[in-house]
């Protein structure tokens, strides 16, 4: 009969090793799984909050736009005045017709009425005709030279007409010359339009 030495397992030592292993496992799981997951979740939640805020803003913008559209549709009379003050077209003839009528109303006589030629198209732009509000616009001044004859009182009346008529016209320079009989007034004006 052979003698086989039996290995006596020490239960106390085994439990300590298991306990230690479990502690290490818990620490490893916490460090390398739970912590990154918590961090990732935090980031995702923050991202969600930001996107929800963006969504709410987009919704507000949409509502605001629909309100503004309604306002524009309800303010046709006011917009007519705005269009008169700052037209969406820059036909120089509009300014000439206006100034000629103001000069006539003041009792003065027009000697000269010229405008500075413009680079942009005045009328007949097919794109603009098809989609009048499709392009970005900017304020474009049109320089006008106006020479008139009359009295100082008439000039004062003409200036008042220019300052208070429906269209915004700025007088940038006034020149007066007199030969004793006739007084000539030269005005440099700027008319504005809001065009592409």
């Amino acid at each position, binding site marked *: 009969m052979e003698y086989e030495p039996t290995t006596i397992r020490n*239960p*106390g030592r085994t*439990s300590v090793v*298991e*306990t230690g292993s*479990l*502690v290490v*496992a*818990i620490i490893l*799981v*916490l460090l390398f*799984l*739970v912590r990154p*997951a*918590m961090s*990732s*979740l935090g980031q*995702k*939640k923050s991202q*969600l909050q930001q*996107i929800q805020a*963006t*969504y709410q803003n*987009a*919704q507000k*913008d*949409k509502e605001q*736009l*629909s309100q*503004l*559209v309604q306002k*524009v*549709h309800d303010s046709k009379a006011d917009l007519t005045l*705005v269009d008169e*003050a*700052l037209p*969406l077209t820059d036909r120089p003839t509009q300014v000439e017709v206006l100034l000629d009528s103001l000069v006539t109303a003041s009792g003065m006589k027009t000697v000269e009425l010229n405008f500075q030629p413009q680079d942009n198209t005045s009328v007949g732009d097919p794109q603009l005709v098809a*989609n*009048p*509000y499709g392009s970005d*616009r900017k304020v474009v001044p049109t320089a006008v030279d106006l020479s008139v004859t009359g009295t100082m009182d008439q*000039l*004062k009346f003409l*200036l*008042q007409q220019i*300052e*208070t008529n429906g269209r*915004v016209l*700025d*007088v*940038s*320079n*006034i*020149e*007066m*010359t*007199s*030969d*004793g009989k006739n007084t000539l007034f030269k005005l440099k004006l700027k008319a504005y339009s*809001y065009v592409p």
Partner: protein
Amino acid sequence: MADINLLGNTNKGFSFARNGASMAAKILATVLVLVLLYFVFLRLQISQTTRAVNDAQAKTSEVESETLAGKDRGEVVTRQGQVQNLNNLLKSHVYWSGLLPELARVTLKSASYVGFTADTFGVMSVDVIVPTYADADKYLQVFDLPQFNQQFSDVKVLSISKIQSGSTVQTEMKLQLKFNPAFIHKTLQ
């Protein structure tokens, strides 16, 4: 002979330690399982949040596209720009008609203007005719009076000369003066 358990005390301590370690192992195993369950819970949360993020992004893009593609948006944008620019133009709008009466107020009654140039920066040149040198002197004195020099100042006499007008001889002065630019930027009363 009675049995004597000489190792009795040792065995009790050993058993207690073994049981304690075993209990700790069980508790730790439970904790480990709970931690793993928490990790699974976190992964599920991440997955749900990611879906929510994607949904919110899609909704936001949809709303933004709808807003940008609105058929009346172009008109609203144009009108806003038009009104804003009009307000800016009105802020810098000039009112010359108030300046001429003010110039008349500070002008000697016997004087008359045959030349006049003014710009919006507050510089004015005038050619004024007066009957005599004495009147020319009176004309200039006015600008030293506090009640008359509120809007006009720094008068420079560029030239004084005698001119023949028909049968009368008059005095012509060429002057350069400053006026308050704010005066032509205020609205009419």
